């Protein structure tokens, strides 16, 4: 097997300076490493280096039976574990042609949308940190903590839930969940204007994020950007709406879009999406039917030989799973198309030419989770 390329030594001139940002840096949101070429304070070139958290997720998947992969998917995007479970079990169900009971579908949507709120909350908090506003961070974590309490009451876990099963859900919702969840939503709705007071309406915040990191529609499609980033560029594209899976076609919700594709638009899309997720959860709680939670699933899961690519709209964008089966108990090949991985690849394009401070804001607005980028 061949040895690959040689590391090029970086040559510095008197005018330009290379700064190594990361893998340990407060605003790389994990172990991302960026090689910045600086001209004074202006970033002229960004070279991302990833893989510091690579743990052969896909190779592990090939060596486990289909159900055993679920706990590993938790660790992909560890801020939205429910959604990873969702995407994976949906893929295998599609591959096998399994039907999921009504009640389980509703449970899935409720938990997934709550997870979206929790994930966007973390994003908002850490984005505030990137811009030097610490207070919003604590506010967002206060709310997220309540969501985690709800998840704990459902699954017993607070971060890595492993709560979806191929063909349904393992446990029914606890009796207290409906009232608790409704109470949380009632409590959460008035919190959104609070964030506006600290962030959205603050003139310093607006001046910091408007007009930087612009991503036009053409580049967004070219780079296959997805999720809030794509919608921030003004493309009304939400897989829950445009390629509906599970029971998302039954709910009424808006798809917020931006106009210019700058950091501000991405911020606003996520901020408005939280309110839309609240709407979806409310409708799902209202319509939640009684009944079975686990469909008819064979004891040994042996999908027919063949392959499938299936995608869901995770809080970060299009989370796709490519699973190739050879008819055995284990996936022959299992690949994750993680939204953060693809969205991050556009950073050198939208980040170059900005000040260091703006670069940090732009990186924050992409909303990466390194567990998912590096797999």
């Amino acid at each position, binding site marked *: 097997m061949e*040895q690959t390329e040689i590391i090029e030594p970086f040559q510095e001139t008197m005018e330009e300076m290379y700064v190594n940002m990361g893998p340990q840096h407060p605003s790389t949101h994990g172990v991302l490493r960026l090689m910045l070429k600086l001209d004074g304070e202006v970033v002229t070139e960004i070279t991302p280096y990833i893989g510091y958290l*690579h743990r052969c997720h*896909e190779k592990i998947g090939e*060596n486990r039976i289909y159900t055993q992969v679920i706990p590993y998917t938790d660790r992909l995007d560890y801020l939205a574990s429910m959604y990873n479970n969702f995407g994976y079990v949906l893929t295998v169900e599609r591959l096998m042609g399994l039907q999921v009971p009504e009640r389980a579908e509703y449970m899935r949507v409720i938990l997934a949308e709550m997870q979206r709120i929790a994930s966007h909350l973390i994003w908002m908090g850490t984005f505030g940190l990137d811009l030097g506003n610490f207070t919003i961070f604590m506010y967002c974590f206060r709310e997220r903590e309540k969501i985690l309490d709800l998840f704990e009451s459902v699954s017993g876990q607070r971060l890595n839930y492993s709560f979806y099963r191929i063909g349904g859900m393992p446990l029914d919702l606890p009796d207290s969940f409906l009232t608790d969840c409704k109470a949380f939503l009632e409590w959460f709705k008035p919190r959104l204007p609070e964030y506006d007071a600290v962030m959205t309406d603050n003139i310093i915040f607006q001046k910091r994020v408007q007009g930087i990191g612009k991503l036009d529609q053409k580049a967004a499609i070219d780079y*296959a950007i997805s999720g809030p980033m794509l919608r921030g560029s003004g493309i009304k594209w939400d897989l829950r709406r445009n390629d509906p899976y599970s029971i998302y076609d039954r709910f009424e919700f808006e798809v917020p879009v931006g106009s210019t594709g700058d950091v501000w638009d991405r911020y606003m899309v996520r901020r408005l999406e939280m309110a839309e997720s609240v709407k979806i959860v409310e409708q799902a709680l209202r319509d939640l039917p009684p009944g079975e939670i686990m469909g008819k699933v064979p004891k040994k899961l042996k999908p027919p030989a063949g392959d499938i690519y299936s995608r869901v709209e995770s809080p970060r964008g299009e989370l796709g799973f*490519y699973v190739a089966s050879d008819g055995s108990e284990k996936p*022959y090949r299992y690949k994750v*198309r993680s939204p953060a991985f693809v969205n991050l690849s556009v950073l050198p394009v939208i980040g170059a030419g900005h000040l260091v401070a703006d670069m940090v804001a732009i990186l924050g607005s992409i909303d990466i989770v390194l567990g998912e980028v590096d797999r």
Partner: protein
Amino acid sequence: MGRITPDEIIQAIMSQFGEAVKASEIKGVEARMDVDRGKSYEILLALKGMGFDYLNCVSSVDRIASGDLEAVYNLSSLNESAKAMVRVRVPREDPVIRSVVPIWSAANWHEREAFDLMGIRFDGHPDLRRILTSEDWVGHPLRKDYQDERLVPYEPA
């Protein structure tokens, strides 16, 4: 939405490239094609011309039984409901495919990943470096015959 059907896609590609399409199949709204590697770039370019402007994913599979490596392109469109899946097989001894980065920039990191983990080389890629493993890594971990002295084989109890 939904102006073009998977059937039409396969028809159009078959008529244009003929023998380069080795097999085709329709699954729901998805048109699936196995194509020859010599014409893969042209076929993918033609698919983009049909409206597949969004490259979802480039996966790589080690088909060790037949001694091939496989690259799988998943395409979709923001205007059409149809999807496309294109598979390209290359022999393990000479795993070279023409890069599609000129068609979709999104392919850049996907192809780097396929190169890094599976060892498929993409001809014409602007920056074909390892991406997830370190620069001095030897071998391609996702190949079925990958061996590493640190790798403990998994034995189910």
